[in-house]
């Protein structure tokens, strides 16, 4: 910034005097800012949402008495990303370990100089431990290892057994899975459900279906592998869009925006029967639908076979003063043991093969979802996942161009063609 330095000094002096005059200690109330004890070293872990690291952090501290782990979490990815971007640009403020979600990963990968190359600590040797494509995603184009894989967002379909029964559809999860091997089947089932007279809508919202289809219809979405925006010409995007429009057209959606208050209330009031759910979504459904709905939900396969929504990496920013220790912590959190611990605490699906093959993981069932064998359902899905290349501004294009456009059609505020054009215009802007 070009601030005339005399001026800056002036204002800084005035300001500092003023602050001191008021007897204020700098940054007096920062959450969790307990200083580490004597000879102790503090490692800060920045995540968003729920990573399920609370118990693991305690465990790590007791195994390493010289280390204190501070977990900082911002709830929404939307708020997390700009803050992280600022920290990295400013050269300070970021945690020693930071989570990078796959939708924003590519953008951060274009500036590998902000991160420690984990190869220097032997991170490259861990490749065999993880789903191969997932591990590959953590590398920058120059071969630098940016992050270690945490979870993958293998998809299932969560559905309400009671509403299916009312609509005279099968309720058994294997039979339900058979209802919709393809997306056309899925739409047809939705129409059958509507005709069944349950009084509820079929699907919560079509934006999540759009996400799921994007992950299936090709190995690229909005960007090609050279990071050119191809949203307008990529057939996989258009195909996912057309199916989404068809869902809206056939009236199988409750037209509630995912994460909105209506969406949350919809769970409680059973106003829709189906939602696409990655493993971590189970926790959210439980909170939203409440204890009263225990056992009423179940999980079936996703149409079209597999699909990924979300999933993250742990990286170590260059600005960390304890890169080696931070790496060791990240390694622990992404180990088979760490991923199972996180899975049990908050539900993110492991990407570590050791965790996926673990007997206790496989045996996990979820009583809330009618004792669905979630370890098997999600675990099998995880191994079948195919990687999709996400471009630099993938998340922004999805969240701020395509999702609003889809919603505007759902709300009846725009025609499909118009919305498609809006989405492409906005995508171009986001990609700039």
């Amino acid at each position, binding site marked *: 910034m070009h601030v005339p330095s005399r001026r800056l000094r002036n204002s800084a002096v005035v300001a500092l005097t003023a602050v001191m005059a008021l007897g204020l200690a700098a940054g007096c109330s920062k959450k969790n800012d307990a200083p580490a004890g004597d000879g102790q070293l503090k490692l800060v872990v920045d995540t968003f949402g729920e990573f399920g690291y609370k118990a693991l952090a305690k465990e790590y501290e007791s195994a390493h008495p010289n280390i204190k782990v501070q977990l900082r979490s911002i709830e929404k990815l939307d708020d997390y990303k700009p803050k992280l971007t600022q920290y990295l640009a400013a050269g300070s403020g970021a945690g020693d370990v930071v989570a990078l979600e796959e939708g924003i990963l590519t953008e951060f990968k274009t500036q590998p100089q902000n991160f420690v190359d984990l190869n220097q600590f032997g991170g490259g040797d861990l490749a065999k431990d993880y789903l191969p494509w997932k591990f590959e995603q953590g590398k920058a184009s120059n071969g630098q290892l940016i992050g270690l894989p945490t979870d993958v967002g293998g998809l299932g379909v969560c559905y309400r057994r009671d509403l299916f029964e009312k609509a005279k559809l099968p309720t058994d999860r294997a039979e339900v899975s058979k209802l919709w091997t393809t997306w056309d089947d899925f739409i047809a089932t939705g129409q059958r459900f509507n005709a069944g007279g349950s009084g509820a809508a079929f699907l919560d919202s079509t934006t999540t279906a759009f996400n799921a289809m994007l992950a299936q219809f090709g190995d690229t979405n909005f960007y090609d592998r050279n990071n050119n925006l191809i949203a307008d010409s990529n057939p996989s995007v258009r195909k996912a869009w057309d199916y989404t429009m068809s869902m809206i057209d056939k009236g199988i959606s409750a037209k509630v925006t995912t994460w909105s208050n209506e969406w949350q209330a919809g769970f409680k009031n059973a106003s829709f029967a189906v939602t696409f759910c990655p493993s971590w979504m189970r926790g959210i459904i439980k909170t939203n639908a409440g204890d009263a709905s225990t056992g009423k939900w179940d999980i079936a396969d996703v149409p079209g076979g597999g699909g990924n929504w979300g999933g993250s990496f742990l990286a170590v920013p260059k600005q960390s003063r304890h890169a080696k220790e931070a790496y060791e912590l990240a390694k622990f959190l992404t180990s088979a043991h760490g991923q199972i611990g996180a899975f049990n605490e908050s539900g993110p699906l492991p990407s570590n093969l050791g965790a996926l093959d673990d007997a206790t993981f496989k045996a996990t069932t979820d009583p809330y979802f009618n004792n669905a064998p979630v370890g098997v359902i999600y675990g099998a899905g995880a191994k079948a996942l195919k990687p999709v290349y996400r471009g630099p501004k993938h998340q922004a294009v999805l969240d701020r161009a395509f999702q609003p456009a889809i919603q505007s059609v759902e709300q009846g*505020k725009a025609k499909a063609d118009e919305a498609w054009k809006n989405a492409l*215009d906005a995508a171009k802007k986001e990609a700039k």
Partner: protein
Amino acid sequence: MSLRTAPAAPPPQAPVGEPPAPGRPARYRLARWDLKYSPYLYIAPFFLLFGAFGAYPLVYTAWVSLHDWNLIGSSSFVGLDNYRALMVDADFWNAVVNTMGIFVIATVPQMVLALALANLLNRGMRARTLFRMGVLVPNVTSVAAVGIVFGQLFGRDFGLVNYLLGLFGVDRVDWQANTWSSWIAIATMVDWRWTGYNALIFLAAMQAIPRDLYESAAIDGASRGRQFWSITIPMLRPTIIFAVIISTIGGLQLFTEPLLFGNGRILGGSLRQFQTVAMYMYENAFQRFNYGYGSAVAWTLFMLIALMCAVNYLLVRRSAR
């Protein structure tokens, strides 16, 4: 104003100054120096702090807006490019229209209601202070609280407003989804918070109007309504202009209410139907980190505010004549 407690002020002390010592030139010089220069010292904190953190950033915004300036701090001078882009930016104009639309449907009823309320309060009555406090209390709640509470009241499926409308046989309104309904919801928040405040401002001005004006009008047989229009309103003209200008400055910078109404999303609805200019500025500067473009939005908004203040000034001056 009468106050018995004054928490911010120190306890008074008896003056303990030494007696003057004439004939000691050094001391005399000091006293002269004190008289001559200390006033500047006393007003300096304001000018320094305001200069550094108020005026300078505002002026510097104009400079930043002439650059392609990003997060890393690298900047290149691009002249008026940002403004050229802004002029053909549909999202920007959309934000301008939204801001103006919300401003108009918020301010007009607000001023009318505030005048009516002030007129009601301008009577001899019991529990005068209680009524005044009652209408001012919304102003005490924070904008964030207003956004949160009204966001819930205007909920589509379970909001109280839709429930009340339902009692009258009106269909549920998806307040966020429609342009007009989102504007109304946001304008309601603004009006709820500010009508009482403006009513008190008008009331103060009404009380300054000499009573004999009304008395002589009453003798001439003018009705209450006629008195209101031909005495109160003209006498209130400067105050109304003042209130409208203050509302213009605040209203065109509207940010928090629409942000929280839309669940904290900076886009302001699926078609940006309630994204204001301030939100668009924030989006560009703090989410896309395009400081140059964001500054161009800010500076354009600044000029828009100046323009609107001038227009309002002329309009109100004319219509109140």
